[in-house]
């Protein structure tokens, strides 16, 4: 009988134990519409998202996963990123900075050097409310690209903001006032676009009365992050592609960028004139190489247009 009671007691203990797993989802499915505003070097973009109420506070999850922002005219030593979060119907500014961005060395983790509290006081009839964000975050650069090579040059940054959101009333003035701490975290990926090269567009127009003369215009060339400032024309010349170790430039000691160069023919270099007149001397097929440069000194790639003089 004693053994029976012992076994029954053990079974009861086991049944009781089975219901004592208190682990649960870290973040509940309580999803509400949220909104964040990301600002990168002055360019603002509104980002829809949602936030979940977790055990430790509010967590923002922003979508789309990858945000885009144009870096524009920024210097390449810093990227200034600001995130504005709408919390409890109000807009609070969260700032974080990537301390150093070098296009030649963009791998690895970067610890942010600055994180600080943002405190905002609001007077109320019963005292004043205060809101505090304590930020400590990291940016991880997860993709290495060369920002000068193509129209799609960009760098993908990912990171999250963490903070302690503190809300309450001043206890000295209102001992019964509420105080509340909420953990805050926003995870974001954003893609920074490098300064894009311009797009060159060529128009060749006939001149009335002279079949040999053409008006060659690049005035429709454009640049999406700046403006076009110079043009080059190479008529009946050629364009050569050379590599980074080309030794033809023996006067140059440093590392030489790979690229293309025009030579021969009638070569009009780096002019600010977007439209020229040219009179071909012979009938037949002629080639016009052309390119343009934007105000960040980035040249477009050489393009070629073939025309026939009859």
């Amino acid at each position, binding site marked *: 009988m004693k*053994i029976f009671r*012992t076994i029954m007691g*053990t079974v009861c*203990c*086991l049944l009781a*134990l*089975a*219901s*004592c*797993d*208190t*682990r*649960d*989802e*870290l*973040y509940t*499915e309580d999803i509400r519409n949220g909104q964040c505003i990301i600002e990168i070097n002055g360019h603002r973009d509104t980002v829809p998202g949602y936030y*979940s109420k977790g*055990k430790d506070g509010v*967590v923002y*999850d922003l979508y789309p*996963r990858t945000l885009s922002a144009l870096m524009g005219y920024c210097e390449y030593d810093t990227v200034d990123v600001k995130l504005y979060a709408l919390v409890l119907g109000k807009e609070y500014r969260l700032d974080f900075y990537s301390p150093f961005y070098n296009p030649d060395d963009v791998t690895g983790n970067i610890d942010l050097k600055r994180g600080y509290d943002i405190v905002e006081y609001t007077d109320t009839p019963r005292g004043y409310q205060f809101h505090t964000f304590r930020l400590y975050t990291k940016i991880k650069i997860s993709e290495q690209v060369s920002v000068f090579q193509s129209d799609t040059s960009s760098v993908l940054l990912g990171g*999250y903001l963490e903070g302690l959101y503190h809300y309450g009333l001043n206890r000295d003035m209102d001992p019964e006032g509420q105080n509340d701490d909420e953990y805050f*975290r926003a*995870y974001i990926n954003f893609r920074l676009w490098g300064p894009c090269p311009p797009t060159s567009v060529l128009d060749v127009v006939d001149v009335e009365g002279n079949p040999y003369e053409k008006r060659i215009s690049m005035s429709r060339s454009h640049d999406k992050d700046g403006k076009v400032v110079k043009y080059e024309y190479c008529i009946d010349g050629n364009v050569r592609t050379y590599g980074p170790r080309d030794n033809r430039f023996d006067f140059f000691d440093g590392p030489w960028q790979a690229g293309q160069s025009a030579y021969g023919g009638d070569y009009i270099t780096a002019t600010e004139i977007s439209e020229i007149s040219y009179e071909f001397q012979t009938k037949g097929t002629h080639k016009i190489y052309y390119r343009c440069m934007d105000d960040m000194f980035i040249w477009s790639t050489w393009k070629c247009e073939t025309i026939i003089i009859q």
Partner: protein
Amino acid sequence: MIRKLFIYLCFQLTLFPIWAEEMINQHQMVSLSHVKGCQSVGIRGGKGTKSVYDVGLTYAYCFNSKISLLFELDHERWICRPKEKTEMSNVVLLSAGVEHNILNPTKWFYWQWGLGAVVGYDKWITKRLDHLVDKDFCYGAQVGTGVEFVPWTRVSFLLKAQQYALFSKVENYLKPNFSAAVRINFHK
């Protein structure tokens, strides 16, 4: 690092039967298992209410026929069901405590209870938020009860139920664990 340590321990465990046999041959043979100086080493596997699995090692040293020193090293994987949006691992969980024999009606059956202090390392992964990962050390205590069957002097089998209370920055929680273990007993 912790994973490598765990793999190393598992590797050592595979060598354990050879080592234990050697120990038994080299030292004095006795016919009693729960006496002073008797040591037990074994492996255990189990499952909690929501956990996927729990595996571990166990070691006990008998001070006398009633009290033993008990160490348990565990690794548990857990998924929050039914939504399965949160996944958690006790990457490593080390318990140090004592085991007390309450009842010993026959020489092959023991009813035990025990308690111990626990330290470990937890990892939480939230699938909803781009797999955000939280890691932290945890600490706490565990209490448990179980039965031990000793069909042979050298080998014993344990069925055990334990309740853990663990604390960390990520989460404070209770968790049960039901485990079966096989131990090899020897005297030094």
